[in-house]
């Protein structure tokens, strides 16, 4: 690891100020950034820790649904969101291992937008709002492909607001080595319709499976998607699965998520 400076502001404004300097980078749980620095693939001059800012911590009900501070660790979400949004809590409880869940945060996960990460599917399927220090970004506008988001340089995610669905479930199929999502599907049923978001599968990152949404909005049952075909051309092909395999998983897991949401 290269040497770096470290600051730990206690307000969002101070953090934004610190991040406006050349070479500064936000540090949340460090579960992605620190390993990258250890491998000398990143060498920020200053790390700006976001974990001492009270407004960025915690889970509570508020306007528009469940508010989760961006620096809230996965383990806290798993515990505190359970009563309000069990599917989201279960997703958080299935990320990594206890050490990762106690350090890693929802904001870090969303800022990173790993194509195999779990949270992006929940945010997209819930039609959540990503709140930053300068604006509110709708989930549909936020994710822009692999490791790419609508965030500007130095912009800080401060919280995420999740509308609470009537029914929802996340089904993750583990990549055998990393246990990130080889493919994961989040299904959320709202009064206005069903949203289905898929992570881990596409070369373009998390995406909504609109055909399934239409079918499930008409009939929220596993049988409703039986006749649908998932296009495999844009799927990821790697050591752990072919394109056809991932396309199959999307369909199988969507059916299982619907069944789990109904259970």
């Amino acid at each position, binding site marked *: *690891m*290269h040497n770096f400076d470290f600051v730990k502001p206690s307000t969002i404004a101070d953090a934004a100020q610190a991040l406006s300097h050349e070479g500064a980078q936000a540090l949340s749980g460090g579960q992605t950034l620190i390993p990258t620095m250890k*491998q*000398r693939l990143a060498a920020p001059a200053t790390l700006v820790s976001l974990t001492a800012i009270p407004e960025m911590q915690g889970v509570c009900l508020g306007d528009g649904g469940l508010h989760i501070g961006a620096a809230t660790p996965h383990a806290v979400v798993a515990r505190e969101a359970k009563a309000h949004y069990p599917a989201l809590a279960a997703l958080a409880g299935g990320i990594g291992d206890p050490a990762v869940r106690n350090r890693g945060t929802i904001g870090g996960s969303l800022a990173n937008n790993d194509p195999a990460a779990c949270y992006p599917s929940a945010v997209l399927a819930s039609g959540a709002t990503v709140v930053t220090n300068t604006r509110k970004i709708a989930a549909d506008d936020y994710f822009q492909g692999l490791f790419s988001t609508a965030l500007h340089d130095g912009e800080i995610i401060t919280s995420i607001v999740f509308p609470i669905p009537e029914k929802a479930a996340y089904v993750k*199929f583990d990549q*055998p*080595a*990393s246990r990130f999502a*080889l493919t994961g599907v989040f299904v959320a049923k709202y009064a206005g319709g069903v949203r289905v978001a898929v992570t881990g599968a596409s070369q373009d990152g998390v995406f909504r499976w609109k055909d399934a949404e239409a079918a499930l909005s008409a009939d929220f049952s596993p049988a409703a998607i039986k006749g649908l075909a998932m296009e495999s051309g844009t799927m990821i092909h*790697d*050591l*752990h*699965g*072919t394109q*056809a*395999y991932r396309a*199959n*998983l999307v369909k*199988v897991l969507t059916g299982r998520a619907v069944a789990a949401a109904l259970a």
Partner: protein
Amino acid sequence: MPKDGGIGASTKRREDVRFLTGKGRYTDDINIRGQLHAHFIRSQVAHGTIRKIDTRDAEAMPGVVKVFTSADFAGVGGIPTGWQVTSRDGSVMLEPKHPVLAEGKVRHVGDPIAVVVAETLDQARDAAEAVEIDIDELPAVMDMKAAVQGGPLVHDEIGSNLCYDWGFVEENRAAVDEAFKKAAHVTTLDLVNNRLIANPMEPRVAVGDYEDHSGQHTLYTTSQNPHVIRLLMGAFVLSIPEHKLRVVAPDVGGGFGSKIYHYAEEAFVTKAAQILKRPVKWTSSRSEAFISDAQGRDHQTRIQLALDADNNFMALRCETYANMGAYLSTFAPCIPTWLHGTLLAGNYKTPLVYTNVKAVFTNTVPVDAYRGAGRPEATFQLERVIDKAARELGVSPVELRRKNFIKPDQYPYQTPVAVVYDTGNYDATLDKLLELSDYAGFEARAAESKARGKLRGFGLAHYIEACGIAPSNLVGQLGARAGLYESATVRVNATGSITVFTGSHSHGQGHETTFAQVISDMIGIDASQVEIVHGDTSNTPMGMGTYGSRSLAVGGSAMVKATNKIINKAKKIAAHLMEASEADIELKDGKFTVAGTDKEKTWVDITLAAYVPHNYPLESIEPGLEETAFYDPSNFTYPAGAYGCELEVDPETGKVEILAFTAADDFGNVVNPMIVEGQVHGGLAQGIGQAMLEHCVFDENGQLLSGSFMDYAMPRADDVPFYSVDHSCATPCTHNPLGVKGCGEAGAIGSPPAVVNAVLDALHRGGFTNVTHIDMPVSPSRVWQAMHG
């Protein structure tokens, strides 16, 4: 009932007290005053010509003492190979130079090019970024068949990528071909034995130290066999005589074979410490281990089984391409040959076997022994082709095996592949397996799975291994450049406690406990009175170390031999003290008695007399009580067993879940059942890891795709089931004093075919009858592809 702490008792491992309380002393815990840190700069391309290495900027950086390149190792030998294989045409294998640091060319990703030595590791790493290296990339040769059919040369100077072309038993080749012509049925199977990365928990570390005034070198290293390293490095690489070179392998956190070999980093720190006159330390990172530790397996095989009209095995034919990687690691040449071709009789009375192995150089990390080494490859192909034959013939895989087993009354059994099995009872282990796994109830369980939409399968595999490695005169004829005896010094202290110095090395096996149990039993003193010392060439007799399930069978035998010498001498002393004839002295429970009398001396009476020889026959017996013995086995040992795997396949996702795994092993006599079970559990986890998860994959340019734990799947606790293991079907080894066979590798050898056979069984039961094989790892994607692809 075994005596507490004696042979047969499940004594808790004494070494675990220090390991579990953080008191283990591993090589990385060794820090010597004034020590420098070495950082290796490794090739990022698989194949290329080194045009230029400019170290000037780096050498000017803070803390940097020196940047080494191959130029600094000009007078130094290459890393030697410990085994020479002879090809079918009588020529010896091609043996290209393996320099400590790359000379002229790089040949795999990870090949060391230069080393920065600095005051701190961070300074060394910073400076490494300033070393300018200019490499002209060359096309990499990755595919073994392409490599021998005119692919780019890994080593230009030897003119070929074919290391050797070995045939065994060459004289049987024509007879085997003839048998295939006459066969009523021939089953053919093409398969891959997947390349693995050993990944012991502790990565490799080496610390070199040099004493200028005496010329004494010390190397602390993570080795399974410090004497072998001293011999290879001292004699062949650095020209340091043994008395000036001490090699210490302290606590070592697992090896699985990967810490047998002599590595460039060991020679580097030893030499650099001498040049710089300061200690030099290198600690491998996990990422570095992925590209610098010798890897395992990587065979491509066509296996064929010929059967007569009564389903008797007539002949077996195997054609294998074995990947050596870019250089020959220490024992690489013998793995696909003498540890593989000699095992292809398996548990069966197949009269004719022929194996052809082509060993090939590619632009990949070197490959060498990994838990089982050659024997897993032999077992996998044999047990897969038998299962396939059973399916083709519509007979039960259980009965086809049983019909062809060597029977209990046929021992000693001369196989057609040189080795002679001393004992065994394969019907017994099979019966035990079927009983423990409730084979009779399988159909009902399969029906229950089916009702839940899952496909259930049962897979059987038998294995035999040649362990207790090895008779020196035999391996010498086969090309070994070392003997494979083992040694022990048993030092009885004046007040009766015992210190044993063994040439074996424990890096997880529990020798400190089991070896003490043996001595405790032989003399009748408490095991706590016995200390086992290993791992330091300065106090242990020359020994060959630990691998090939040899420690108890060979090292333990040396210790028994030395202890018998002690007992004989002690009896002489006792006879003198009790004024009796030596022949009448008996030793039992730590007491010497004279037969037919009530005379008695304790063990301590005798040991004290030996060291305080006031009343002592000094004219005929030396004082003291210390003996050394070397034991060279007269044969291999042949552990064998039956393994059964029961699993479910999810037909929608291809995911395999192992529900039960049963092992019925014959290890001969067992000294510590708990440790034996632990060894089997670990071996099974590794075998299941190979079968289901682990895969070292390079792309066509030689870049490692599975270069970290994010992509290389190690088995975790929830990937493996609770095991049912048994070793009650014991047929003791006939030719070593303890009657032991070895248990360290069995699990890893026998389990992969059981898993794959079970997956195939599940698929067939589910109607996917056109699937005849799936290569390991049987990942969800591969299983699904086989069903639906």
